[in-house]
């Protein structure tokens, strides 16, 4: 496949897609100084040119629909087309966001049902569906923690604890909430270092942000102790729901001592990630934090569904979006939840865990090094290619790029930071054993290649539309927009 010229390169002044161009409207009377004179750089192409261009572009993407995509922490599982279809119905798509509630009972009932489902799934008291991704959910959580402490008159709690292995959004969120971040060590077995936690926790602790299973891909076994320690110090526990897939239907975050959490519906609830987004990051809280939930939520009043706004939640942290979050994603998540049902939810965790443990076992047998060999894999697991880097001079990055040539997306690389040359591998429950076996084969094959001639691996990829890209140059010679030259 050749590289594709930009759409601007094929553009020709004056060319239009006539059938999409309405008759021009009258602008007389508008002040001249308000009007545009310069011509924007937009494509001037036919509809066929557009269709062909973006069809071609799409073919240059790996995706779940086309490839095994074991991107750890991202839960790239099958996105049911039925859920997408359900949310794409005209009644949902053409609904204006300011339509009054009395004329939106169908949609509000969907939101209500999803709120109820997520309450059960998380074991929490109340849910707000508003946040538009995990990170925004974290922000909402952080703000609620802050609001809670301030309401308690506790203005000094300005520290958020996170394990060193935490996802970048956790510390970044803490900052956006006006907190400082303090990092807690992770012990050699992947669990949080309790002693370090005890050392750091205290009267300045607003809360702690944790995932469980953790970003080290193991179940945090002493979670209840951690909860006690933090709670005893007056802090709150935030659960980063990115890894909820691992425990769906097994245990609830609410039962592990968490006070507030987000879910990534684009992970656990299989809404498509769209090459970057959208997602949805509903937050769930226990009764302590309920008053602060972001608005709007959906309530029920005499059998009618209503919007709950600041009139019902005067202490709310406020709005997080102009309207009601990523409504369409919420509908997809509900559709998925309905299709999974009670029994399906448990199956998710079981088969995700089975697949991960199988893949971990097979890779280990094939001679790859597990980061936490004494631990169970959860829905994902970590390997370190440190030995390969040392002995064969091929790094995790090289393995990642070479995997692409095997028509598989690479796992997450170099995350968490504390494990050197690591792959965070999440096969998900929707892949078959045959695919997992192919992955093991590919990994072994790559190591063989590296043994014979490491350049094959270090210069990978070879079969993609481009060879390895120069990221350093990209950041140094900034070329962020096209211009005719």
């Amino acid at each position, binding site marked *: 496949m050749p590289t594709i010229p930009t759409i601007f390169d094929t553009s020709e002044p004056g060319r239009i897609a006539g059938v999409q161009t309405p008759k021009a409207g009258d602008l007389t009377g508008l002040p001249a100084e308000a009007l545009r004179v310069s011509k924007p750089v937009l494509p001037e192409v036919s509809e066929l040119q557009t269709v062909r261009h973006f069809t071609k572009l799409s073919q240059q993407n790996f995706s*779940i629909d086309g490839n095994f995509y074991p991107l750890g922490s991202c839960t790239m599982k099958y996105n049911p087309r039925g859920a997408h279809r359900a949310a794409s119905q005209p009644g949902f798509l053409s609904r204006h966001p300011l339509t009054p509630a009395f004329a939106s009972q169908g949609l509000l009932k969907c939101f209500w049902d999803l709120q109820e489902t997520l309450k059960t799934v998380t074991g929490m008291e109340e849910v707000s569906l508003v946040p538009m991704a995990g990170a925004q959910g974290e922000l909402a959580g952080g703000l609620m923690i802050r609001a809670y402490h301030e309401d308690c008159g506790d203005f000094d709690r300005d520290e958020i604890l996170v394990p060193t292995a935490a996802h970048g959004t956790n510390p970044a969120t803490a900052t956006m909430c006006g907190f400082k971040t303090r990092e807690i060590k992770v012990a050699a077995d992947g669990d949080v270092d309790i002693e370090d936690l005890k050392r750091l926790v205290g009267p300045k602790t607003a809360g702690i942000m944790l995932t469980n299973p953790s970003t080290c891909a193991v179940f945090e076994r002493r979670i209840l102790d951690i909860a006690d320690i933090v709670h005893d110090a007056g802090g709150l526990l935030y659960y980063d729901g990115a890894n909820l897939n691992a425990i769906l239907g097994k245990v609830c975050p609410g039962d592990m001592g968490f006070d507030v959490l987000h879910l990534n519906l684009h992970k656990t609830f299989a809404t498509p990630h*769209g090459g970057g987004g959208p997602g949805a990051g509903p937050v769930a809280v226990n009764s302590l934090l309920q008053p602060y939930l972001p608005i709007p939520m959906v309530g029920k009043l005499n059998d009618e569904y209503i919007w709950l706004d600041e009139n019902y939640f005067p202490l709310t942290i406020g709005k997080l979006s102009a309207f*009601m979050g990523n409504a369409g994603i919420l509908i997809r998540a509900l*559709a998925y939840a309905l299709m999974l049902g009670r029994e399906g939810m448990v199956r998710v965790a079981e088969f995700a865990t089975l697949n991960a443990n199988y893949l971990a076992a097979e890779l280990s047998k094939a001679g790859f090094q597990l980061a936490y060999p004494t631990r169970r894999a959860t829905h994902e697991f970590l390997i370190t290619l440190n030995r390969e880097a040392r002995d064969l001079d091929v790094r995790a990055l090289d393995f990642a790029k070479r995997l692409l040539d095997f028509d598989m997306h690479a796992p997450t690389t170099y995350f968490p930071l504390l494990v050197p040359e690591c792959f965070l591998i999440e096969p998900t429950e929707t892949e078959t054993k045959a695919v997992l076996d192919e992955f093991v084969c590919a990994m072994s094959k790559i190591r063989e290649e590296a043994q014979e001639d490491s350049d094959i691996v270090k210069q990978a990829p070879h079969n993609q539309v481009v060879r390895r890209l120069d990221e350093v140059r990209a950041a140094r010679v900034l070329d962020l927009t096209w211009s005719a030259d």
Partner: protein
Amino acid sequence: MLQSIGVANIDELFDEIPDSVPVANFRSIEHSLTEMEMMQRLSERAREDELSLCFLGAGSYDHHIPAAVWDLATRGEFLTAYTPYQAEASQGTLQLLYEFQTMMASLASLDVANASLYDGGSGLGEAILMAVRSNRSAHSRKIVIGGAVNPFYVKTANTLVRNQGIELVQVPHDNGLFDPLQCDVDDPSAVVVQQPNFYGLLENVDAISNWAAERKALLIAVVNPLTLAVLKPPGEWGASGADISCGDGQPLGVPMASGGPSFGFLCSKMKHVRQMPGRIVGRTLDANGDVGYTLTLQAREQHIRRAKATSNICTNQGLLVTAATIYMSIMGVAGLRHTASRCHENTNYLVAQLEATGRAQRAFSSPYFHECVIRCAGNVDALTKTMISDHGILAGYPLGDIDPTLEDCLLLCATERRTREEIDLFVELFSRILKES
């Protein structure tokens, strides 16, 4: 598989979960439905909410979307990819984003654009945070907000920025317009103005822009991207242009869909780029010296810079950007221009016909574009309710909800989709309902 792992059953795989954590109880969750059953249920609900005509804008607009847009955007390779972390396997998304950045920056007449934020409201919050980081010369953390900036955006932005000690100072509108001279903040870090403003009115953006520049405040322009095909772009306002432009991309091929998913966009002058939040794509070369695309300036982002990142945003609104890029490609300059001007003409016609009934008149006299406030001789709440219940028509946004002085006012627009017949029908019903009430 169990054998390879060395366990007897799947339960064993969960043996690191302490027994003291109770087993989840999902009994309140329904049994699973087949796709067919799920569709039956959700179709019923979708149908329940269908209305037939929309004269409501206020930040979300009922535009025509060429069929090709979503046929392409929902191709599995776009729909089911993750963020393009492995650039070589994601050239499709990356090149598309590079093209998107080009289109958006050019529409705004600014240098750079990012690859999206969540929506217009949170986007304004990010724009303000970016401005404050970027404007090191400012003495205050005060932001002056024009009185007619979308109130939903202001509320949302406030949620985001107030935790960082930033104060939003809103100047009351003067006859619907933003007059910075009525502002008592001397040293704002940034000034926010919306064009056309929430009431559809055209602000004197040149003067406001210059006013801000004189005070060394950065100017943040909130815009409807579609209108930029016709209106002077932020980069050309006043002597030096706006610094940052943001808004919601919904008018660019995204269905109203209850407000989401849509996307927030953010453009700025090059000098601010390192303070920009969100993904940015750059063009570079591969090992053979051929052109390719990759995420760049990642040192701004949370996965690298962590607590010092420009934002915590990770997942953005990529798919909607995909749709918008395809939309802008199909529409091109002429398509956008004609669409925007047709909306304006349709709204003009609507307003003229409403005024002709004698039961409505414009609330503000200065020029508007695309959207307009109408003062009604009668009860606005009753009117909008009857319109929905009896006719399936969304009759505009009752401004009393956000501004008591506009209690008898409706914010109305008629997009390019509204035919003369539909507008005439609306005007007739409008007049009849007001008469009867």
